[in-house]
């Protein structure tokens, strides 16, 4: 039985991401890291592996920069890492991503569970979670905050989801595609043994030909194309210092102002 995680290298959340003069997105010389949400999905897969003796595989779709994320996943304790890429995939939309992912899951075979982090922070989307589940013909469960129970023999999973009003508990058959939130675990650090293994690992690359995808998942086949990026408008702030003889007076003035502006 395999558990699969899809991950990628993204700019650190602390990086200053902006659109440069040429309309391209840049993050200066900030480091690329394992997509921050995937610290949880990778950790969860390792915890499940330890508890259920299953095999874990990390996939990334993209060029060599994504080897870093895959190596980090190995260093944290996942068993295998595979990168999916060829030049034709450049410009892929989320459906193209999901098609490549579905083909990879099928090629790997015997996959019980696919775990995503909440989203990929660089593209800010989780559409691929649901698109992949649809293509695989299995259940998608988003915003999972806890895996209550999983039985890979009986092929069932019971999870808690965060919903706006509170928590929801539900069961579903396996295979399933889930996305997980921060509450799910305390992310594991890489271990020195894991780092040794990861640094020696040669990561295999599966092309669209290997996956039998043809043109279906190529950038050229993308239905959605990004037209332009724009920086957030600069917010003009105004500072007003509230004067007054006493603290009480200043506080009253402040409260009145806030009421006036309908802030409170």
């Amino acid at each position, binding site marked *: 039985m395999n558990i699969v995680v899809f991950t990628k290298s993204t700019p650190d959340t602390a990086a200053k991401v902006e659109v440069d003069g040429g309309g391209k997105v840049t993050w200066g010389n900030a480091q690329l890291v394992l997509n921050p949400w995937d610290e949880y999905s990778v950790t969860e897969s390792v915890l499940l592996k330890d508890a259920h003796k299953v095999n874990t595989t990390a996939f990334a779709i993209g060029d060599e920069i994504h080897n870093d994320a895959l*190596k*980090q996943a190995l*260093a944290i304790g996942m068993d295998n890492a595979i990168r999916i890429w060829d030049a034709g995939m450049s410009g892929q939309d989320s459906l193209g991503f999901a098609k490549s992912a579905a083909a990879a899951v099928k090629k790997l075979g015997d996959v019980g569970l696919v775990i995503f982090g909440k989203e990929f922070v660089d593209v800010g989307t989780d559409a691929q979670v649901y698109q992949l589940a649809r293509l695989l013909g299995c259940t998608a469960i988003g915003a999972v905050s806890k895996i209550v129970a999983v039985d890979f023999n009986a092929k069932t999973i019971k999870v808690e989801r965060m919903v706006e009003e509170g928590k929801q508990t539900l069961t579903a058959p396996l295979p399933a595609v889930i996305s997980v939130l921060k509450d799910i675990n305390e992310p594991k*650090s*890489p*271990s*020195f*043994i894991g*780092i*040794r293994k*990861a*640094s*020696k690992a040669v990561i295999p690359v599966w092309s669209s030909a290997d996956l039998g995808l043809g043109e279906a998942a190529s950038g050229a086949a993308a239905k959605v194309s990004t037209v332009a990026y724009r920086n957030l408008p600069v917010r003009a702030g105004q500072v007003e210092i509230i004067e007054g003889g006493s603290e009480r007076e200043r506080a009253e003035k402040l409260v009145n102002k806030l009421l006036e502006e309908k802030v409170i």
Partner: protein
Amino acid sequence: MDFLLTEEHLMAQKMVRDFAQKEVYPTIKEWDRKQQMNPDVLPRMGELGILGISIPTRYGGQGYDYVTLGLACEELERVDTTLRVVMSVHMGLNSLALLQWGTEAQKQKFLAPQARGEKYAGFGLTEPEVGSDVVNMRSTAKRHGDTYVLNGEKMWISLATKAHHFLVVAKTDPAAGHKGMTAFIVTNDMKGVTTGDLHGKLGVRAGSTGWIAMQDVEVPLENRLGEEGEGFYVAMSCLDNGRYTVAAGATGLIRACLEDSLKYSMSRKTFGKEIARHQLIQQKIGFMQQWYDAARLLYLKAGFMKNRGMRNTRETGMAKWYATDHSVQAALEAIQIHGAYGFSDEYDVERYLRNGKGAVIYEGTSEIHQLMQAEYALGFRQDRPLRCEMPAYDPSWQEG
């Protein structure tokens, strides 16, 4: 020398950096103000394997090379000097000395639990009346059959109240000068051992520095490290490793000063432009970059020599002297760049100065290092082979 670094080095460095930045940095100011050590630090460093980083796996360690140890120290001190001090005493001054001089039984009994992070280790050389001039120490060890009885006091001992094992040097033959000293493994549960903390230090306030008093402490023969009379050589080889960690750490402190100054000077404006656009600020930044690059090259060179089993007393001493002196200099410049904010603990740079100042005193003061380098240059000092040399790094450290 960065070109020597492998992917394994870089991944290990990142792992240590993430630990220090994510787990220690957020509360470091609080602990520094409280003058207490964050109680999570030692257990986490043990759990992550950092406390056994360059000890062979057959002795409970992680089997990484000396260069990785240096890189880890740089990352630790980039966040706070107290983290690197842990490595200097636990790993540099103690664990590596057991690896070098210990019997197989000592390695199994003391080194392995240290490398696994189950026991913490310290080093007791300095006394209330004696620091640089170690040959004049007062502590004594008198042999009665298979037992030594130790008496004396050790002062300024890092992790004094936290460590379980101490490497202590005492006089077995007070008349024999440096040949009358012997090293012992003293454990904190031995009868007659008491320890305490020192407060009111200028820096390393989020760390632990204290004293050890020994009153008629009975130490079994099997806890003697090396031969009787070899204690001076044991202590000096401990310093070859301790100083390496200090050098790498101080390099991290220079980097901290540089990185914080880059950030601040690009955001603070005076006379209509970022202060980074003023040439006198650029001069300081240029120097900091120079000091960082040179300090890094010096410690990586020492690490490279250690990996190959080459004697590196002079090179390690040079790396330690250069990096620590310049870390104090860099901290002064960083404070200057931060103006009044640099003078307050709202920013980190004042802590860099207070922390950096300790390292130009311990593990050989700057004066002692300057004298040593002059003596080497003049031919007044030569390194002689030791009965037990520091082992070269060997890939078999990763096996077993």
